[in-house]
């Protein structure tokens, strides 16, 4: 696996101060990627950036609730301002509003799930397209779930 191919590339990952998002940020940073880390909480973002930098990676943190258009646009503009563009867009932010039988989900739970997980993922991609179009070979990696087609217990 050539380390060189990620050198200088910029990855933007939502909900990346913990869990899967942070693991992706750390992995890409370890390969030479500049990563833009984000989550709803400044302290969590700062902690994640510190962790990546301590390991020798390049990272910049932006507070972003994916349900907030201004914050999504800021996430994109910060990636451009600090690192020059976006090569990898990784919408990872999601909510899990209901556990148990799907048929027992409420109107409010379904609405929130679709709003954040589907609509805001789409809007972030749409809003980032002008930047992705500037970079040859740019890529989008959407985080979905096995739960899309089967139960997780």
């Amino acid at each position, binding site marked *: 696996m050539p380390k060189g191919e990620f050198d200088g590339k910029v990855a933007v990952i939502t909900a990346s101060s913990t869990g899967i998002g942070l693991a992706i940020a750390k992995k890409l940073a370890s390969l030479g990627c500049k990563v833009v880390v984000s989550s709803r909480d400044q302290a969590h973002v700062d902690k994640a950036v510190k962790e990546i930098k301590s390991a020798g990676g390049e990272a910049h943190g932006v507070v972003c609730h994916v349900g907030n258009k201004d914050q999504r646009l800021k996430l994109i503009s910060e990636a451009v301002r600090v690192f020059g563009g976006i090569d990898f867009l990784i919408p990872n932010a999601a909510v899990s509003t209901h556990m148990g039988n799907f048929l027992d989900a409420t109107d409010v739970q379904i609405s929130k799930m679709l709003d954040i997980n*589907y609509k805001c993922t789409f809007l972030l991609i749409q809003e980032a397209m002008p930047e992705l*179009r500037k970079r040859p070979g740019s890529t989008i990696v*959407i*985080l*979905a779930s*096995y739960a899309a087609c089967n139960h997780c217990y």
Partner: protein
Amino acid sequence: MTKVLAKELLYENIRVNCLAPGLIKTKFSGGLWEGREKQSIEDMGVTRLGEVEDIANGARFLCSQESSYMTGEALFIAGKPSPRL
């Protein structure tokens, strides 16, 4: 969404793929497995729960030119066969 976007962006050379994690040990999914890991493994029909590294490896592959001939696909990383071909 992945498939439609992948089709629309094909000739612009922008790939769109998705990762479909199974049950991964994170705070987000804690309600499902914390305090009952053994039972969770049995219920899920896997040999272990997933680690965040399992998914990060998938993201690396999909961002890499190693997957340059792949677009519009879902990479299931769930410790067991996905319900589709």
